[in-house]
Structure formats: C-alpha cells, structure tokens
C-alpha cells in the first residue's frame, strides 16, 4: 500500500532501520576512510551517532515532531567524528522541519529533508564538496524536484537513495584525495546505507534493530607505538566537546554560534559546531586542545569531552569486506615498481607514486620472481620497473621478458639516486608511453650517487689508502675518500665529485648515522657548496651511512 503520510511511529522505525543497515555495513564504510585525515572510523562514528538517536528513550507513542526532535537530541548527545556530527545536524534540520507536527504529507517531508541539508551546511565552517554534505544535498534536491501527484514516500525514497548512490559515485570527481585513493567518500557511503535502511522500513522489509550494538571499537586497541619520541605531530587531536552554556558566563539568548565558530577556526581545522538550546557541540582538529577547552569554558561547562591523537593507529589491519564500496584496486594505465631499502627511502618512493616496493638493494638482490610477484599486485597496462642497483637490472629485464599480464618497462637505474631523480620528475599523466619511458630514462641521466660506508678490509684504490673500519666515500666503483670520521669521508667525497657545480644535493642519512652526524654533514656541505641547495633527509638505509645524490 502506498504511504503518503509520515507519522512519528514510522519515522522512528525508519531511523532504527537506517541504524541497523549501517551497522551491517559499517566495516565497509570504515574501509573508505581517507578524508580529511584519519580521525577514527567513519562507519563506527556514524553508527554510534545515529544509534544514540534511534535508541533515545521514548515514553510511548508520539507525534512526528516530538519523535524526530527526541531522536535528533539523542544524536546531538552521541555525535562523534566529522561525518557523525554532520549527520546529527541533518536530523536536527529534519526535526526542525517537523516541529509541532503530528504527521507530515510528502511535500512537507521533502521540505524537512531539504532543511536538513541546509542545517548541515550551516554547521560546517568551510563546507567541502564531495562529502556527505554534497551527497545529501544532491539527493534531497533531486528527490524533492520529482515529488508530484503520483508520488508517495516509497517513490520519494527510491529517488532519494538512487541519487545518493549517483552522487556518491561522483565524489571522487570533486575531491582529489578520493580520486587518488580510488574510493568514494566514506561519510557519503554511510549516508547511503542509512537511507537505504530507512527505505526498507517504508517498503515493509523486515529488519532487526538490536540497539546499542558494540562496534567492537573497545576491543580494537590503539597502537601507541605509532607515535614515538621523535614523531612530529602532523594531524593534531580530534577534539569533541559538548558544552552546556551557563547563565553566569554568557547571555545564552544572544549567544552567536557563527562568531563562536569563527574564533574556533583560529585554533583548529575541520570545525563543525552548532548550538541547540543551551547545548553547544564542537568538533575540531587542533594541535592545541588545551586552547579549545579554555576557550569553550569561557561560555559554559562541559557535558562530555573526547580528545584523541589522530596519529595513533589501530594495530589491527581492517578486515577486507566484500561489499561494493570497498577500497577498490583502480585499474591504472601505468604502474610503478621500485627496489629500495630503508624506511625513509621507501616512504619517499611511495609518496612519489610507486605502487609496489621490493625490499632489497646492495646486500639483497631480488629475483625475477620477486619482481613478477610485485607486478601481479598491480592492475595496469604498463609497469615501470626501477631496479635502482646495477646488479638488479638483469633480473628486472628477465622479469620483463617473462611477464605477460602487463608490459614491463625497465628503467635501468643503477643507484637509488638515479631512481629518485627519475621518479621525482616523472609525469605519469601523459598518453604516450614511449615518451614517458624515454623521459624516465633521461631524468636518471647526469646524476651522481656518492656513498659513504664502512670499509670491510684494508687496501689501496684510486690512490686512496683504505683502512679496515674506516669510512670510505665512493661513486660507482671509484673510491674517493677514506677517514675514520664518516662526516669527513662524506665532505671529501663531495669535494672530489665537484658537488658545488650542481643545483641540488640530496643527502640520505642511513640507519647507522646519528642525527648529530647528519646535521654535521649538512652544515659542512652548506659551508662548502654554498651555491647548491643541500637537503638532508632520513633514508634509514642499511650499509650506507650516507647516500649523496647530486643532481
């Protein structure tokens, strides 16, 4: 039977069905979490938010206005995470649209949903398109525009959910970070599952709402080792507070949430804040949570507080979930494999767009089989292979001859330096693979890679008297310096190579070089080669205390 009127009981069962459906798919949503920065799992956060509305205690049957406002209030108290807080605003806006009503006909429902979108945008200081905000707005605009004589709640929700899915698929077009990760927006996906659950309730599909389900979050310990003594606080703290405005501190009637938000903007990012009566909810990412607390306390007292270091990770890899929105492996035109060792170098290579890194190098030469195994993990038409060591080029060529699922193009880089130089200049967006390969090879040319290592035995080479246990500086097969001090060996190597004639000198400090030694070498290079740019970074490579890339 077609339903054209929404009442309190139906809306309540819709929200419960939405919560139940999201619960079932929450891991799939968690898996998509890439935006804006890691602040917990979106699926869990949204579920806990909607469930605190769905499970808000009721005193028996109530009208639509009352029911929606009770659930919105519950969500206000339980909202967590960026998407969760925005979700709670969507429902607050809907509840405001239903205020005082016993029930609503379809046009009124469409209006209330439209109001939910408006309210959600209003809570965010800088609305970002390609997120839950866009998905909901697109959907209510589309479905609202199609409300006509033949429509009912079923057709409205059919339009709403269909457009949500389309809008969700468009989110990677709007946000680079999603496109690069090959995912759709997680908050938007969570919203789709909620809306589809709500539609089930209208269509009379049976669902089980257990209420207050554990998301298993407590059982998932955080790994405190992901934040170490020298870790730089890049993302700060996800800080969420619920404040009760206090009469003795502020004039509650004239409290200006926009002004309050603007001030928060100065202390943090991703600000979502709103006021509901005398309760203010704040979600913010900040480097200095103390400042947020001090600021907020000027207006009232805290009802709840949550502060999490966003750089800590859960020490359990997310379970792969077989659903449609799971992080998909994107088919690429061109993939990249590189051989490297050392955490810093590997991380740098990854950030330069390398898909698969094979651990190896001087002391550990990977086989053709290792290279083929890495290629198997990439879905691409062409795969560039960077051996980054003279001894590995042969194996790479052999792998290229054997592999037939993609064309392997070996860029014959002899050193990490050549590999870095080529990768950092490479532009994979071009259409002509031959040109890309030719460019990749030419970027690697004219690069000197000097290395400093401990001498394994005493001998004489190239006129340099080498003493076992000393540090030697060499490039290719030619030894240029020997010193008991690795910093001296490094600077003498630079001088012999004529480093001062080059534009950029990138020095990678190895696992055995201390921070002090690295600073020392950097200073020495800057003093000696003033016209060049000297850059020092932690490469973390074994064997070579310093790798000096001269471009």
């Amino acid at each position, binding site marked *: 039977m077609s339903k054209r009127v929404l009442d309190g009981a139906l809306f309540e069962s819709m929200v419960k069905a939405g919560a139940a459906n999201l619960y079932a798919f929450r891991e799939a949503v968690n898996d998509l979490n890439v935006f804006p920065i890691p602040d917990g799992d979106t699926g869990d956060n949204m579920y806990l938010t909607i469930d605190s509305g769905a499970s808000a205690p009721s005193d028996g049957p109530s009208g639509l206005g009352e029911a929606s406002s009770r659930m919105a209030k519950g969500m206000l108290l339980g909202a967590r995470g960026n998407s969760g807080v925005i979700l709670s605003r969507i429902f607050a806006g809907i509840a405001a649209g239903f205020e005082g009503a016993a029930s609503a006909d379809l046009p009124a429902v469409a209006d209330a949903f439209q109001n939910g979108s408006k309210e959600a945008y209003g809570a965010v200081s800088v609305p970002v398109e390609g997120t839950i905000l866009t998905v909901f707005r697109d959907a209510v605009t589309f479905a609202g525009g199609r409300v006509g004589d033949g429509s009912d709640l079923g057709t409205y929700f059919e339009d709403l959910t269909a457009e949500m899915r389309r809008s969700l698929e468009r989110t990677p077009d709007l946000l680079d970070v999603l496109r690069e990760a090959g995912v759709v927006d997680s908050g938007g996906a969570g919203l789709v599952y909620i809306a589809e659950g709500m539609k089930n309730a209208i269509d009379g599909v049976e669902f089980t709402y257990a209420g207050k389900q554990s998301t298993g979050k407590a059982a998932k310990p955080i790994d405190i080792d992901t934040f170490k003594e020298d870790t730089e606080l890049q993302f700060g703290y996800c800080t969420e507070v619920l404040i009760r405005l206090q009469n003795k501190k502020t004039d509650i009637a004239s409290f200006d949430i926009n002004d309050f938000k603007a001030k928060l903007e*100065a202390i943090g990012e991703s600000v979502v804040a709103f006021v509901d009566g005398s309760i203010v909810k704040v979600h913010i990412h900040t480097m200095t949570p103390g400042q947020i607390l001090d600021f907020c306390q000027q207006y009232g007292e805290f009802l709840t507080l949550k502060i999490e270091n966003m750089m800590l990770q859960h020490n359990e890899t997310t379970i792969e979930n077989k659903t449609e929105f799971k992080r998909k492996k994107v088919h690429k035109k061109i993939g990249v494999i590189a051989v490297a060792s050392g955490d810093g170098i590997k991380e740098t290579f990854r950030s330069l*767009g390398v898909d698969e890194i094979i651990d190896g190098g001087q002391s550990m030469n990977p086989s053709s089989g290792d290279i083929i195994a890495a290629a198997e993990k990439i879905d691409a038409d062409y795969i560039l292979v960077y051996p980054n060591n003279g001894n590995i080029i042969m194996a790479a060529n052999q792998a290229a001859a054997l592999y037939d699922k993609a064309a392997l193009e070996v860029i014959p880089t002899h050193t990490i330096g050549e590999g870095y130089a080529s990768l950092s200049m490479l532009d994979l967006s071009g259409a002509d693979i031959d040109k890309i390969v030719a460019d990749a090879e030419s970027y690697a040319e004219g690069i000197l890679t000097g290395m400093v290592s401990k001498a394994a035995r005493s001998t004489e080479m190239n006129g340099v008297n080498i003493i076992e246990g000393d540090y030697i500086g060499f490039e290719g097969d030619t030894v240029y310096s020997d010193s008991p001090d690795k910093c001296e060996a490094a600077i003498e190597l630079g001088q012999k190579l004529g480093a001062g004639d080059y534009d950029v000198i990138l020095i990678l400090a190895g696992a055995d070089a201390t921070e002090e030694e690295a600073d020392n070498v950097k200073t020495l290079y800057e003093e000696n080669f003033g016209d060049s740019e000297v850059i020092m970074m932690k490469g973390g490579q074994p064997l070579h205390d310093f790798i000096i890339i001269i471009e």
Partner: protein
Amino acid sequence: MYTLFTDSDTDLTLKEAREIGYKLISMPYSYNGKTIFPYEDYEEFDSKTYYDMLRAGTLPTTSAIGKEKYISYFEPEFAAGRDILYVHFSREMSATFNNMDEAVAELKEKYPERKFYGLDTKGITAQSLCIVYEVGDMYKAGKSIEEILEWAKTEVYNFSLYFFSEDLKFFHRSGRVSGLAAAMGTLIGVRPIITMNAEGKMVAIGKARGRKKAIETLLQYIEEKGDHIEDHRILIPNTGAPELAAEVEALVRERFGRDLNIVKVTTNPTAGAHCGPDGLGICFHSVKRD
C-alpha cells in the same frame, strides 16, 4: 560617483591603496589562537617576521569574513550615494564570496538605487594585483565603471602568473591547487610549477629540479606566452624571498629589456599561508590564459 574596493588578498598594500584611492577589504589569517586582519591590525606587513615564522613550522589558517563585515565595508558608501566597484580575488578560491553576495543582496533592498559591481580578477596575489593596478590607472584617468568592466572582459585573461613553491605541505593542507597529486607529496629539491587558469583556479603544470631550473622555467614562460610585456608592469611576487626576487628581476631585465617596469611584490600573509615561504613567481601581460 563610485568607490573602488579591493582586498588584501590581491597584494595591494595599504599605502598603495591610499595613493590610488582603493578601499581595502581585509582578509584574515590565524595562528596560535589569534586572528589577524591585515592592514586593520597593523599599518605595514612585516613580511620577514611572518615568513620566518612559517619557516619555523607555524601553519596559519585562513578564514572567510562574514556578511556583517562586508556590510560594514559597503554600507557607508551606499549611504553616501556612491556605487561600488570591487576588484576582488578569484571566487574559486574562497567561500567568502557567498557571504559577500548575501551582504550585497541585503544592502540592495535597503538602497535599491545603488549599484554594486564585482570584478573577478580570476586570480590571487600578483595575478590579481596587475589587474588591480591597471584598474587603478583607469580610475585615476577618470574612466567610468562601464569602461573598466568592458576592458576587463578581455584583459583579465591577458595577464599570466607562473610561480613555484618551495614546500608543498602548505598547498597540500589547503587543497587549493589541482593536479598536485598525492604522488607529488615529497618533492625534495623538485619544485612544482603552478599557474592560474582562466577559471581562476591554481593548476600545477610541471616540475623543475632545483631552484635555478625552476627560475629558468618561469623565464621560458615569458618567452613563450609574453605579449607586449613592455607596455605593462611585470610583477615578481615572492613569499618572503626578497633577495631571490632581486636576482630574478636582474635576470628578466637582462633577457627581456633593461627598461621594463618591474615591481617586486611581497605576497600577502593570507595567500602566503597557502603557498608557504620562499616561493617566487612572475606575472606579465600575455596571450590569453588557458
């Protein structure tokens, strides 16, 4: 009678604004819990201290100004019976213009006979400043709003800005450049070359290894795209790198003419918060921007 407005994001200084007759709208930035309005909280921008602070690791944020603030700028002009021509930075770069639209709509109800014109420079910093200067010249020469807008229809697109940035973390955080894929995350020693397209968006169009090559790339763009550069100002914006700007000025004179009208420009702190320190660019009269 009309009043000219521009904003601090176009790099016009308060001193210049007074000289030409521009009123300046202040676009704020914040750090350590303080929000600062350029040229309202200070008379002169201390770029050295500011960019040193960025080098030391402070990451300021920027925020949109609200409707009320726009009203406080515009209403006195309308009340005095003057129309407004606002030469502003690109609409593509901030949500602030929605607030401006609301303010203008509200004021129009109150002052139905008054007119408001926005001139979108489709750029920010030097890209906007060269247009702000040209409009200022026309204003001083007594041109009408209509004449200026007619000129702007084509000329806004005939100035090009190319610049490089030293440290991508600022851009990554702000998300205001397209084409800077995550793959360009750690470009050590390699500088992205960025331009502003005809839509007023920042786009990364290439990379150069080392600062010298980056500068050479900018000079090549003058060669390739320059059009009657001698008839217009050439701007060299920099984010706290005045010595580098002086070096580049010398290179431009050497290659393109001693008598060129070259102006070195200190990038305003609000835009600087997105580019980071030690970036440099060149803005010149050119064939139509892409």
